[in-house]
C-alpha cells in the first residue's frame, strides 16, 4: 500500500514539476491576494499586523481550493477516473496518495506565503515551532478534506463551481483554528496556539478516517 501511495504522490508531484501550476500560477496569485488585502485595508499597518494570521489563512484557503481543483482536473481531463477504476490500485491508496501530493503542494504554497506576510505586514515571529506546526497541521487537514470533497465533485459537470461551495464550509474550522494558532505564533494574541494546532490535527484525523471509509464508494459512484 505504501508503494502505491508513494507512486501516486510522486506522479502528481512530477506533473506539478513539469506544469508548474502550483508554483507558477497559484502561488503568485495568493501573493497577489496578500497584496490586495493591503489595498483593501488602506495599508493600515496596525490593522494588517492584527489581521496577518487570518489573512494568511484566507489566502491559503483560496490557493488550496484551486490546487484541489487542479489535482482532480488532471485526472478527469481524459475520462472520469476510468483508468484508476480499471487498475488494481486500492481506493485507500488513491485517497492517501492524492492527499500526500496535495499536502506537499500546500506546504510549498505556505512556504511562499509566510515570508510574504512577515515582510509585507511587518509581523514578528514569537514562536517558530508553533508557526511550523500550525502550518503543517493546517496543510494536512486541508489536503485530506480537499481530496475527500474533490472526488465527490470530480465526476460532475459543474465541479468548478460546486467544489468550493461544498468545500469551504468544511474548511471553515481549519481557517478558524489556523488563524488563531498563527496569531498566537506571531505574538498578536497570547492564547492556546498549541490547542488550536492540535484541533487541526484532530480534524485531519477525522476526515482521514471518513475518507478511507468512503473513498472507494465515491470513486465508483461518480
Amino acid at each position, binding site marked *: 500500500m505504501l508503494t502505491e501511495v508513494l507512486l501516486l504522490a510522486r506522479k502528481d508531484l512530477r*506533473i506539478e514539476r*513539469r506544469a508548474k501550476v502550483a508554483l507558477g500560477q497559484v502561488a503568485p496569485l495568493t501573493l497577489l491576494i496578500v497584496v490586495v488585502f493591503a489595498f483593501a485595508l488602506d495599508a493600515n499597518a496596525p490593522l494588517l499586523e492584527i489581521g496577518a494570521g487570518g489573512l494568511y489563512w484566507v489566502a491559503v484557503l483560496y490557493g488550496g481550493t484551486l490546487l484541489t481543483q487542479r489535482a482532480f482536473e*488532471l485526472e478527469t481531463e481524459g475520462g472520469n477516473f476510468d*483508468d484508476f*477504476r*480499471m487498475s488494481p490500485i486500492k481506493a485507500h491508496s488513491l485517497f492517501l496518495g492524492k492527499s500526500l501530493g496535495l499536502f506537499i503542494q500546500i506546504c510549498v504554497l505556505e512556504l511562499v506565503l509566510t515570508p510574504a506576510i512577515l515582510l509585507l505586514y511587518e509581523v514578528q515571529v514569537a514562536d517558530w515551532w508553533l508557526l511550523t506546526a500550525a502550518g503543517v497541521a493546517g496543510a494536512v487537514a486541508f489536503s485530506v478534506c480537499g481530496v475527500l470533497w474533490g472526488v465527490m465533485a470530480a465526476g460532475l459537470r459543474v465541479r468548478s463551481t460546486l467544489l468550493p461551495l461544498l468545500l469551504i464550509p468544511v474548511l471553515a474550522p481549519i481557517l478558524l483554528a489556523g488563524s488563531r494558532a498563527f496569531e498566537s505564533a506571531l505574538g498578536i494574541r497570547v492564547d492556546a496556539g498549541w490547542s488550536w494546532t492540535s484541533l487541526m490535527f484532530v480534524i485531519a484525523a477525522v476526515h482521514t478516517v471518513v475518507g478511507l471509509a468512503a473513498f472507494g464508494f465515491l470513486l465508483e459512484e461518480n
Partner: protein
Amino acid sequence: MSAVVKFENVVAVAGSFPVLTGVDVSVQEGEIVLLQGKNGAGKTSFLRACAGLIRINDGSAQVFGFDMRVDRQAPRRYIGLLGHENNLYQDLWAIEHVEFRAVAGGGQKSDAVEALARVGLASRLWSVPISALSAGQRRKVAIASLIANRPRLWLLDEPHAALDAVSRADLNIILKEAVASGATVIFASHEGVLSEELSSRVLTLRGGQVVEDSGAH
C-alpha cells in the same frame, strides 16, 4: 472455450439516457469482435458495460464469470480499456506515463520500455511531454499503456483512429498476437476494410441493441 462476456437483455442508463436497451450477446475466448454502428448506437456504452464502468439496470451480465450486477469491480483486473480519449497525463513524458500505468497495473517499469518499443514509438519521443506529441503518437502511448498491463480482455474504442497505415497494420498484428496467447478483443471501429480483416465476428449495434451478429451461435 468459455464465454468471456455473456449479456442477456442488458439495459443500462447513463444519467437519464438509456444507452443500452436490451443487449443479447455472448463472446467466447479468443474471438476478435468488431462493433459497428452509428455514433450513439451504443458501441462505447457496450464497451464500458463490459468493463464494469456503468451500472446494469436490467437483464443479466457476466464477464469472466463474474455477475456484473453484483460485483462490477472483480473482473477489471483482467481487462484493458482504451477509450475514445486517450486518458493521458499531458505533462508527463511518454515513458513516465507508461511506466506509471504499468506499475499501477501491478507490473514492472521494464514493461513500459517493452510496450513503447512494441507500438513503434521512436525512442527519441519517449522523453518528450505527451502534450508535444501528435495525435497518432499519443494514441500509441495509450496503446502502449494497455500492452504494459497484458489484459486478457481488450476493449478498444476506435483503436485505429489517428494512426497511420503502417501503425494500423502493426496494431492488428499486436492484437492477433494477444489473441494467439489467449486474450479476447472487442473493438469498435469505423474503419471498414482494416477492421473486417482483423475481426472474426461483426456485431452491428443500433439504438442500444445488437441488431446483427455475423457469428451468432
